[in-house]
């Protein structure tokens, strides 16, 4: 259907997909999307500036609070960076514990996403079921770390809590239950007709576009491209724990669902292996407060894709500059490509398809496209410019 002229439909800033703010301005011709303009930055919290004002130990807890869902990915990335600056390495047992926590987090994050995706296409029953089963992982986290979401497991030089022998059978029992449920959900998303009708062939991202637009994580892997930081640049104990990188070549929302569901099953296998092969020993090494001068980039495969942290140290107890590049930001150009030419009714599920996390993403920098330069402002400059108006 085409009416010859287009109308502009805004989506957001209140909760376009997940319960986080972001704004997308769609140009719509009849029922077809012809143009998308994303506008981000509603959740800018000045995290990077805050990093510079706190000591390295305090920053662990700040890094954890960049995102609620992938809190462990951020701290892993942060501690890895600082460990590299310090020239220390986490003990082997700590590296295994990091893998276990990271994979548990991947399960809960992907399970959360499957629920959200079901909700976006109006299938609330699947949403409730998946979230009920996700509680199993959260309970395991509570047992291991005392918290359901902000586990605070990582510290510079290792992890803060051990996984005791008594916990292992409980974790395995929980995972066995999850494996059964996940196989069922995998079956549901492959066979349930109403889901297929809404997900198959929707939000197509061709492999070439995915690479050109720097798509990341499950979104990229659902376009058939084998890319995973865990395999390409192993960190923690991923060089010892066997796992498969899941790819599907459907390039649509349906294969994004499949990739995530199968990744959860892979994670369960990886956790099982890590639990069985965990070496004995200490879980952390002591590190000095002052970090020597240097720069470092650290990469981690967060549930949503490749996460990059950059740290610059000037030899004091506080970092001089800190930069976070979260996977959602990398996926935004690809997202705009997916939305073009689609139906208006498909916008929510496509948008949710990249598993956006706007609170992770929002940073502030000014870019003048015409003069081709970028710069940052201090709070005083911002106040001077806008507070008086």
């Amino acid at each position, binding site marked *: 259907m085409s009416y010859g002229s287009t109308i502009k439909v805004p989506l957001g800033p209140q909760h376009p997909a997940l319960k986080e703010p972001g704004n997308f301005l769609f140009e719509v011709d009849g029922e077809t999307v012809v143009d998308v303009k994303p506008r981000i930055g509603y959740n800018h919290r000045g995290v990077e500036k805050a990093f510079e004002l706190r000591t390295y130990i305090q920053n662990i807890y700040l890094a954890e609070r960049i995102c609620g869902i992938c809190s462990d990915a951020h701290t892993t990335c942060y501690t890895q960076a600082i460990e590299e600056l310090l020239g220390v390495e986490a003990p082997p047992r700590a590296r295994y514990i990091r893998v276990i926590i990271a994979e548990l987090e991947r399960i809960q994050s992907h399970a959360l996403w499957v629920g959200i995706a079901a909700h976006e296409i*109006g299938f*609330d029953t699947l949403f409730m079921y998946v979230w009920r089963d996700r509680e199993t992982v959260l309970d395991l986290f509570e047992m291991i770390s005392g918290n359901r979401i902000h586990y605070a497991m990582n510290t510079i030089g290792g992890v803060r809590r051990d996984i005791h022998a008594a916990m292992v059978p409980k974790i395995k029992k929980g995972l066995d239950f999850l494996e059964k449920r996940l196989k069922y959900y995998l079956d549901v998303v492959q066979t349930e007709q109403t889901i297929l009708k809404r997900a198959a062939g929707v939000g197509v991202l061709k492999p070439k576009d995915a690479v050109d637009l720097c798509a990341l994580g499950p979104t990229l892997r659902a376009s058939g491209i084998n890319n995973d930081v865990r395999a390409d640049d192993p960190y923690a104990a991923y060089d010892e724990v066997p796992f498969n990188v899941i790819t599907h070549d459907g390039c649509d929302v349906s294969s994004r669902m499949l990739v995530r569901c199968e990744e959860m099953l892979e994670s369960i296998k990886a956790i099982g292996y890590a639990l069985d092969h965990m070496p004995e020993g200490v879980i952390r090494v002591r590190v000095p407060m002052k970090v020597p001068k240097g720069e470092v980039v650290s990469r981690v495969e967060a549930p949503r894709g490749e996460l990059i942290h950059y740290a610059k140290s000037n030899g004091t107890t506080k970092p001089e500059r800190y930069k976070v590049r979260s996977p959602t930001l990398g996926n935004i150009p690809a997202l705009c490509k997916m939305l073009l030419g689609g139906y208006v009714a498909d916008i929510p599920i496509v948008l949710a398809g990249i598993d956006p996390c706007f609170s992770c993403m929002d940073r502030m920098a000014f870019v003048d496209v015409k003069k081709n330069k970028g710069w940052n402002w201090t709070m005083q400059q911002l106040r001077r410019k806008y507070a008086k108006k």
Partner: protein
Amino acid sequence: MELDHAAVEKEVCKEMTEEIIVSMLKILVFPGALFLFALAFFYEWVDRKFFARVQNRYGPLHTGLHGILQPIADFFKLLSKEDITPHSSDKLMFFLTPIFYFALPLTTLFVIPILGQTSLIAFEGDLIFVIFAFTLIIITVFLAGWSSMNRFGTIGSMRAVLQMLSYEIPMGLVTTGPAIAASSLSISEIVKWQSPPNFWLILLQPLGFAVFTICLLAELQLVPFDIPEAETEIVAGWRTEFTGRKLALLRLGRDLELVLASALITSLYLGGSQQFWLIPPIVIFLVKTTFAVMLLSLLRAVFARFRIDQMLSGMWKYLLPLAALQIILIQLGLGG
């Protein structure tokens, strides 16, 4: 002679007053408006509770026994909320549509037999009246969304009308099935026809029952056809701008529509309000309608939402031929 005349007049007056009072009571209290309100709130609770249990949740829990009073509490809460009329809306339409939306199903319910096999108001052709009322409800929905001048409201109301274009015809077609079987266009006659020695029409026309139930899902805007109010796409659709008293009326209207739908399923296909052994017909009616409500909420729990184009083509491609097939089968002497 004069005295006698006065006495007769008095007698007639008394009788007439009694008759008026009785019929007033019937219309206003039982089985009329008050009873129907109670039933509407009860079925909203049944729907919410059953839907929640299917999803492995608890549903309403705290207000009254197992949360049975929750819909009433919600209603009164909404009545006390601020009533906002958007600046750019069509004020008169915006004011009137909630009243229509609430009054239409209520009025229509009077032609459905509840207490016995005859309804409060029965006439030849009330089946057509019911179908007509269903159309009017959707037109009210359209006006409600359109008059609110909200972009989500407008999209929602357009979708509602598009949806109506697709399910109205199969529904109208398939309801002629019971009418042909009972050779009457009156719902009361159809109910009477289904008592022994004849069977319930669900046994004779299962295809018709299925098509009718699917159409009612679309009429009630339940998943998979909740397209006009798809919350993840267009907020609350045509209801976005309604608040306070108006929203309360819209919700009550929706509940009454649920009662109407379940009562129609019961009357047309499940034998309606019959006496069974010693159990009074009203109890039978309540049991059957509760079953119908549970069927509708089960169906809305097990599907994802269709897209509007998928729904339109599906209705025309599959449901309409099925409805026609049912009528052909009846004409061939099967199921009538």
